């Protein structure tokens, strides 16, 4: 499909957009924290990708290439702002069919989790967001961060252990 899209096949490219749109959108959202801006950038990413498909090396995974376009476009948009690090967007979660008590517990748990993620060092936060919110594989993360897969695994493990520690700390405080 990627080769067909590279050759200019519109159906193949549409398939790629469908496959990667959510991940690209989430990547943009992690930088911009705003649904409108993130959807705008996601659309722009695919337009750029379509017009520059010739520059893509099909030997490498596609998502890191799209991620780089996304990151560059987001940084351009944020140029006047100081907020350049990726982080979790603020979000209201619908808890359908749950009792108010359960909803409250879940909300509190998520608040703890968000606080714990925000407390991590940027490299840990980045790798966790790539893994958990953009569903990146180890190989894709390695390509995005330009580090070996072994380093991805150990950094991800350390990030998770740090997160667990932060969560335990939060629990103790609570």
């Amino acid at each position: 499909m990627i080769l067909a899209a590279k050759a200019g096949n519109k159906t193949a490219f549409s398939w790629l957009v469908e496959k990667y749109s959510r991940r690209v959108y989430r990547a943009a959202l992690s930088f911009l924290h705003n649904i409108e801006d993130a959807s705008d950038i996601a659309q722009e990413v695919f337009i750029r990708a379509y017009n520059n498909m010739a520059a893509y090396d099909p030997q490498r995974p596609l998502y890191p290439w799209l991620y780089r376009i996304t990151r560059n476009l987001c940084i351009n948009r944020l140029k006047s702002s100081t907020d350049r690090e990726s982080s979790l967007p603020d979000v209201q979660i619908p808890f359908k069919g749950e009792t108010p008590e359960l909803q409250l517990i879940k909300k509190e748990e998520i608040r703890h989790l968000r606080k714990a993620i925000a407390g991590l060092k940027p490299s840990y936060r980045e790798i966790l967001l790539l893994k958990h919110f953009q569903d990146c594989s180890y190989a894709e993360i390695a390509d995005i961060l330009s580090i070996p897969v072994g380093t991805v695994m150990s950094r991800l493990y350390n990030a998770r252990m740090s997160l667990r520690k932060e969560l335990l700390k939060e629990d103790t405080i609570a």
Partner: protein
Amino acid sequence: MNCKEMKLKIQALTDNELEEKEIHEVLNHLESCYRCREDYISLLQLQKKMKNIAIPEPQKEWFEDLPHRVLRRSGALLGKVLFLGSYILLLGYALYSLFRSKNEEIIIKFAVGGVVLGGLILLIVSLADRIRESRSDKYKGVLK
């Protein structure tokens, strides 16, 4: 293999990234090692917690319509390039014809020449400003 070496493989198992030939070895280790089993369970619990964080998204229709919008916009971009390219070509030809013509008055040629030259100077000045701005941009490295 000891527990220290095993921890990354256990993580890979929870991430569905472990090679098939290694799965059996890791499962055997988990059966025999209480500490690693606890580690495995805590990794799974952490993943479950992360899944609970919902990400705000546009409506489903936005994603469904995205491929069409992208292709439409790309088509529009091609249209813009064609339009501008042809416009510049025509303008160039018109100017060439005007300056080659012996019937036009010299004042007309001067006026048109002034307009074109003025436009070019403005374009060069604004381009130079942009280049200067990008040179002093401390995030230049990041953008590249």
